[in-house]
């Protein structure tokens, strides 16, 4: 079981900055995120978009902000459980919590900080009859292990980067790759589009456009799909169907944790951003209160106040005053120390 002081759910900018603020108070953090990499929306949706309202940065790319936040928190050695979704929470007798992910990883912490943004990113599923029946039986929305598709007949649907990249990759793994897209044009890196064209000419990718998958077949697992193109429908044999239509955030299991929810967000007390359950805080885009603004800079503020409250909760009898990094420097958990160089004072004679 993973043990930490503050368990942060969501590794977006607010969650990452919490690591730093908690570290200044000598509190250790561990982060859980459903995505395989930290950064939340900033790295998943718009890593190349500039952000103009981060104080002190007239312009910074979302991806660079993530990298900077990781760097800023690195000395406090946060732990990460990535690619797993926080599923259940159990309150213990000593008021601490055990959070278990969808893959069964258990985390134990006295303080929970939900920094889940708009929720965990879930694949957008096409509306096809019985698609749930075939999930994990030939239908997958993510590719975890490409080897699963070795010498198999694979149908990929979608027109973005993931659909293109996986078609290219699987062309040399699967026995047959068919890429189906609603339009003739693809929304992906030019290089990927060209590669798909080349592989099509080499008969390594079967490209069907403009077309849509209209039905799935199979007894206990996927055995075939129907593809409609220009009013005609054909049936293709398939061992696997991989729809790649992007991700959409959903509040998900957190919505069932007994927290007070309003407008798809968690209600908090603005004193310290604690929820209706003592010890569970909600910070950043996932929370709501009167006057709430969903801005990264507001998330940073909320994270800072939340850490102070968490410290007091964990150390009720310990005196503490706010320290300035310019004065006190930073003592990393990794043994590093950062401090401003001492100014040399010369006497005037």
């Amino acid at each position, binding site marked *: 079981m993973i043990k930490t002081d503050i368990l942060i759910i969501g590794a977006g900018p607010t969650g990452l900055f919490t690591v730093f603020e908690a570290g200044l108070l000598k509190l250790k953090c561990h982060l859980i995120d459903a995505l395989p990499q930290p950064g939340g*929306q900033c790295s998943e*949706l*718009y890593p190349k*978009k500039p952000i103009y309202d981060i104080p002190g940065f007239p312009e910074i790319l979302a991806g660079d902000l993530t990298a900077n936040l990781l760097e800023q928190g690195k000395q406090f050695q946060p732990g990460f459980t990535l690619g797993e979704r926080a599923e259940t929470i159990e309150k213990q007798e000593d008021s601490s919590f055990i959070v278990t992910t969808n893959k069964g990883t258990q985390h134990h912490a006295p303080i929970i900080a939900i920094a889940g943004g*708009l*929720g965990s990113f879930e694949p*957008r599923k*096409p*509306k096809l009859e019985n698609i749930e029946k075939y999930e994990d039986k030939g239908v997958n929305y993510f590719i975890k292990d490409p080897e699963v598709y070795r010498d198999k007949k694979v149908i990929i649907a*979608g*027109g*973005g980067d993931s659909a293109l990249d996986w078609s290219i990759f699987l062309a040399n793994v699967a026995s047959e790759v068919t890429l189906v*897209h*609603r*339009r003739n*044009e693809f*929304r992906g890196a030019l290089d990927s589009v060209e590669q798909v064209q080349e592989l099509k000419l080499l008969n390594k990718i079967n490209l069907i456009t403009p077309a849509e998958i209209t039905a799935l077949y199979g007894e206990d697992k996927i055995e075939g799909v129907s593809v409609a193109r220009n009013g005609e429908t054909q049936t293709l044999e398939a061992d696997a169907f991989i729809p790649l*239509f*992007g991700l*959409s*955030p959903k*509040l998900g299991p957190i919505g069932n944790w007994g927290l007070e929810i309003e*407008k*798809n*967000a968690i209600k908090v007390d603005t004193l310290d951003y604690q929820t209706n359950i003592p010890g569970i805080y909600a910070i950043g885009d996932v929370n*709501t209160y009167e006057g709430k603004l969903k801005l990264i800079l507001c998330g940073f503020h909320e994270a800072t106040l939340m850490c102070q409250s968490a410290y007091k909760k964990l150390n009720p009898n310990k005196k503490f005053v706010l320290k300035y990094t310019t004065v006190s420097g930073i003592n990393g958990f990794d043994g590093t120390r950062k401090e401003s160089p001492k100014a040399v004072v010369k006497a005037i004679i």
Partner: protein
Amino acid sequence: MQNVTIHIIDREGKKHAVLAPTDMAMNLMEVVRSYELAPEGTIGICGGMAMCASCQCYVNSAHKLNAMEDDEDAMLAEAFNVKDNSRLSCQISISGVLNDLEIELAPEV
């Protein structure tokens, strides 16, 4: 300040006539949110970057709108419930020419 009237049919089929200012650099998705015509968290999820299609709408009236740019077109190519009159409301800026525009919000995905 000039206002335009926009007719919005919400996801339950209820029609609302709302006033939208033309001088606040707003887009149609933001107007829908400001009047809370769709629950928070179900519209404008990407913030208005044409990256999520949660603000997809159907344009019912014959208004001439700003042309679709590549990113909006590409996003709609991957969205669900798309019709010929589909647009991403975050890509339609509020201006005087939109007076009496009628749109219908696409179902939540």
